[in-house]
């Protein structure tokens, strides 16, 4: 966890944002992220992000659920306590389909949501730096990471020319930390120790 320097450009229209993303990438700047108030389709492709494999994880959680249900019920009804129900077979597969199905769905859903929260580092009390308060309202906030060589003034002018309504230079923590929102925004690692 370390603080980095970022140049922030805010757009208010997807139609302006997409060409701007293309320009920024062609110019070779390092796109940190784009914060949007809703899922803008195609933006992930424009940014060159790879497809998420969350759904593959969901599939594996699902089959885990199926096998859990099937193996548990089989063990219980054929080995642990074989119950004679009207002389029907102990291994009564058709009757177990509903429960196997329900557990498949349950495991897949719970597993995927937990994985989603883990991947996106989402949890109660987690705090992240917000580059612009209106990123969850009506602005598309493009954040570009600066290196030592980046001329920030040039970059800000470049963003303005690409259609950014406002640009900003921020030194911020890129990672998450735990804290409260009303305290100062300095993550605990970077707080100066006050010696008594």
């Amino acid at each position, binding site marked *: 966890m370390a603080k980095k320097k970022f140049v922030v450009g805010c757009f208010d229209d997807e139609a302006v944002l997409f060409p701007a993303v293309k320009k920024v990438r062609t110019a070779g700047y390092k796109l940190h992220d784009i*914060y*949007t108030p809703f899922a803008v389709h195609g933006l992930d492709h424009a940014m060159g992000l790879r497809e998420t494999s969350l759904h593959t994880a969901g599939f594996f959680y699902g089959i885990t659920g199926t096998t859990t249900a099937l193996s548990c019920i089989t063990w219980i*009804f054929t080995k642990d306590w074989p119950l004679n129900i009207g002389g029907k077979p102990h291994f009564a597969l058709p009757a177990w389909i509903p429960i196997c199905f329900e557990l498949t769905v349950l495991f897949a859903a719970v597993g995927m949501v937990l994985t989603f929260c883990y991947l996106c580092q989402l949890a109660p009390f987690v705090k992240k730096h917000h580059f612009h308060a209106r990123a969850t309202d009506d602005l598309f906030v493009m954040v570009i990471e600066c290196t030592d060589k980046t001329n920030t003034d040039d970059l800000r002018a470049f963003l303005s020319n690409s259609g950014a309504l406002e640009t900003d230079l921020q030194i911020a923590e890129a990672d998450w930390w735990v804290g409260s929102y009303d305290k100062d925004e300095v993550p605990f690692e970077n707080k100066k120790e006050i010696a008594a």
Partner: protein
Amino acid sequence: MHLKYESQLREPLVNGNKDYHQVTEDILRPIEAKPTKLWYLGFYIAVCLLMFGVYSVYREVTYGIGQWNLNKTIGWGWDITNFVWWVGIGHAGTLISAVLLLFRQGWRTGVNRAAEAMTIFAVMCAGQFPIFHMGRVWMAFFVMPYPNSRGPLWVNFNSPLLWDVFAISTYFSVSLLFWYSGLIPDFATIRDRAKTKLRQKLYGTAAFGWTGSTKHWQRHESLSLVLAGLSTPLVLSVHTIVSFDFATSVIPGWHTTIFPPYFVAGAIFSGFAMVQSLLLIVRKVFDLEDYITLGHIEAMNKVIVLTGSVVGIAYLTELFMGWYSQNKYEGYTFWYSRAYLFSPYGWSYWGMMACNVISPQIFWFRKMRRNLYVTFFMSIIVNIGMWFERFVIIVTSLYRDYLPSSWSVYYSPTTWEIGFYLGTFGLFFTCFFLFSKYFPVIAVAEIKYVLKITGDNYKEQMSPVEVLPTEEFAHEYAH
């Protein structure tokens, strides 16, 4: 730049010349304002009902099931009727959010949040009935399969009643996850606009530190889509399994193979009716007529007339089979206990027919589908009708069984039986009032997503696209 193209002929789903910021303002206004007197009044009434329900349940738990008028043949009375009724209502939310998402129905975005909330509260209410019907409710955990010191004595995995335990609890959990994952971005919007520290803190905690990163949105979309894909068979399975509670028995009137589709159609029917009742009030009180438009209401009324007719066909099929099977018991149940108006419970069958089959046919007329008063009235009628349906199925099949000596006396509920039912209304509306005040009743982020495709002001600008040659259109919009 939108990848989805919508014809200009379609009605706009967002009226009133909105932009992104205006959408946020409009939908979050009730959360950021003080609750109105009307809200307090409604909340107070709901809590009173809930308290009455708690007292009724207290009596039932303390003195036993004898507090209800169940008797030797009617072992399931109002309690299971209410259970099935609430579970049915709980079907619309997931249907709207999942099935309509897969079918790419744009209008679902206006109503999905409130419908999902309604689903969750309805399933909570439904769950109370089988739990307290157990009598010794402190042993309710016996339904969970776990290694125990009673043998180990396992539950019966071949029993539809146990399938129900799994179905309802899975349905509740998955609906809750689906609902909450959709709420996270909207909580973040409230957090970032918060004027008070408390609000910032509470919504900040609820928002899980959401920033709106493109990668997170990409995962969020994937999650929503897969959860929708999982919920679609789930929502169909839940009422199918509820119908198995009846269909796998050998009671005349229950032992039929058409129960699963018939119950699912009925569930969607009553669920949409409840969504109509709630949303007609919500859109008026919170000034959301631009987001929940007449188009939305008409679309839901179309679903009501479709599912109502499916249910009607099922009733007629049952009557036909009652005659065609030439089974005396089936014939007696369908043609005497149910369809004969002057039999002890004939009134409930014809009440059901009038409410569920005959009256919804009014929605074949466009003028009626778009009339708010008719819609509201019909939504109440449909819910009464669907309650009757479950009452008819349970009571008319049970009150006279194979042995005439045990034919029961006329069953009517006690005060505490009715009190329990009223109490679940209290629970439902207490939750719904809290939801409508503290949660965004419309999915803000999703409305913004469809705004530039379906907003009235953007639709006007869309005309050049309509005249593009096919090649050019494909080039522009194909991904």
